């Protein structure tokens, strides 16, 4: 019986189109053996929550580069909870002020990755901390 692969949704919520970092992370996680779904840019909160539910993911990673994370992250967290997926590991990456990190963690984000972190470190973090959903 094969072990279930870790399933990750990499998402761009809001209007920002900078997807270079998100794609690099998606690619790295995929290369390290995870099943990765990338939403593409300019997704609504609802689209991201639906994708997380439909794809039955263990992790949602969101990338922000235009400063709207404090507005959008709580909405995604709320949406996941309402959809019965409050258990998903939520990660945030991108251009985030250090001063915003405690707020994001307080909302329920598990970890924030700042620019310059090697993508492989994100893969290691997920593997070390994710609780894979049993079927």
């Amino acid at each position, binding site marked *: 019986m094969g072990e279930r692969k870790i399933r990750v949704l990499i998402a761009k919520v*809001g*209007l*920002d*189109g*900078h*997807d*270079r970092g998100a*794609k*690099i992370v*998606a*690619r790295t996680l*995929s290369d390290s053996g995870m099943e*990765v779904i*990338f*939403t*593409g*840019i*300019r997704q*609504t909160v609802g689209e991201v929550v639906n994708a997380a539910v439909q794809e039955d993911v263990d992790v949602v990673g969101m990338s922000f580069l*235009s*400063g*709207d994370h*404090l*507005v*959008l992250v709580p909405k995604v967290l709320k949406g996941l909870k309402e959809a019965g997926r409050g258990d998903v590991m939520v990660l945030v990456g991108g*251009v985030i*002020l*250090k*001063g915003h990190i405690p707020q994001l963690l307080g909302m329920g984000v598990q970890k924030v990755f*700042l*620019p*310059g972190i*090697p*993508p*492989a470190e994100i893969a290691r973090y997920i593997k070390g901390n994710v609780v894979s959903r049993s079927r």
Partner: protein
Amino acid sequence: MGAKEIREGVGKWEKNTLRRTLEASGERKEEFFTESGIPVKRLYTPLDLEGSDYVRDLAFPGEYPYTRGVYPSMYRGRLWTMRNYAGFGTAEDTNKRFRYLLKQGMPGLSVAFDLPTQIGYDSDHPMAEGAVGRVGVAVDTLADMETIFEGIPLDEVSTSMTINAPATVLLAMYIAVGEKQGVSQEKLMGTTQNDILKEFIARGTYIFPPEPSIKLVLDIVEYCYKHVPKWNTLSITGYHFREAGANAIQELAFTLADAVLYIEKARERGLDVDDFAPRLSYSLGCHRDLFEEVAKYRAARRLFAKIVKERFQAKKAASYLFRTYSGSCGSTLIPQQPLNNIVRVTMHALMGILGGHQAIHTACWDEGYAIPTEASARLALRTQQILAHECGLCDTIDPLAGSYYVEHLTDEIERQASEYLKKIDDMGGILAAIQNGFVYKEIQRSSVELQRRIDSGEKTIVGLNKFTMEDEEGFEEKDIFEFDPHAEILQKEKLASVKARRNGEEVTHALRSLAEAIDRNENLMPTIIHAVKQYASLGEICGVMREKWGEFRSPTYI
């Protein structure tokens, strides 16, 4: 001295002089490459330029093929336009920043719009939440543009607008503001970026599918040719390919492939290349590798001139000019030890100047975090002023010409970019190369490769993978600009008040006229100008287009 003597000289030098040093201490690396992967030899000599012909390949400034510069006297006559990108919050905030920068001696404006504006949403649209005034200024109606340019005479200042999908609407507003100031549209100077192809490929602020999107681009090209003769209608931009991960060669090749498509489409519309090509301008990034970047700009001028002459048979010299507005690649700036970015930005300006650009943007050191403060914006401008006036960079034309290395790189970049262009032509042009995923995959391949080199330490980035500090002294986040979320509330209130005051019937009528003009496939500029003058909002105007044309969703490749 002939090639034979030089070849012998090189041989002797390697055998007698170099060998001992290499045996004793070796070199820092086994192999050396430019940022884009072109192999770099230890030494370049006249042997590397064999087969090149000065008069044919380099010639003279202001003459075909323009390798040495688009104008005859370049910076000895007039410096480039220092044009730093700015805009944030409400129209009032941005007007204040613009007036400050003009007072500090910045001769040209470059407007940053917020994402809802760039994607054709009003500030009260649900998708706009959290993004209003965030990465640029929010514009909903003509009232906002009137405020942005209050006290700024549009017949004296030139304005570049980074606006694409809704460029027709913002240009219409600019024309209307000019009219209110008593400046007729013939006198307006500036640029609409208006390059939708690169939005599909890299930047992401597209709205409509390719066909109507390109129609809108050409509506501006055609309208301005007839009515706004000094306007640069379209800035064909490679900068964002680079920022998305492309290397210098891909950046150049995809930019030129886009140019080819726009020129073809404009000709299909019945325009003569010599009527519109002189008002096209270009934008490339200033990245890390000084010599490669300078070579890229030189190769760009030469290759473009050849394409316009040979492929499109342009007759007017003005059609051949690859006039550029270029600037700091934001992706080369990092948040670790952020003051180091000042040095990086200085290098960007240096590349721009040695590369012979017509306008240059220098980023602010804190731009990777937030909206620049007044002080950091001033420093970015001063950087250009110091290089322009203190360092002797501008007193002779194309000073790196004749460097065996730079000339070799110029030839090599031109050769490799031409190969890409040929490949794209064989696929059926850039639209096909976008649709079949080729362009996305090529950029992604380079992006992954660069990331690998940084992660492995093969490519050093100071403060990121070498010379790092645990505790970064001299920088506190309290020193950077804190975005005021109140801007969003103010902006929504302003929109509501404009809507309450305007003549609703006139607006409805204007929007209906726009819908009809779309059905008749007319040039939409006149109806859009009329609509914005009635204070129809950007979201309403783009809403009509969304209804008629639908919206585009880009494929994703990882």
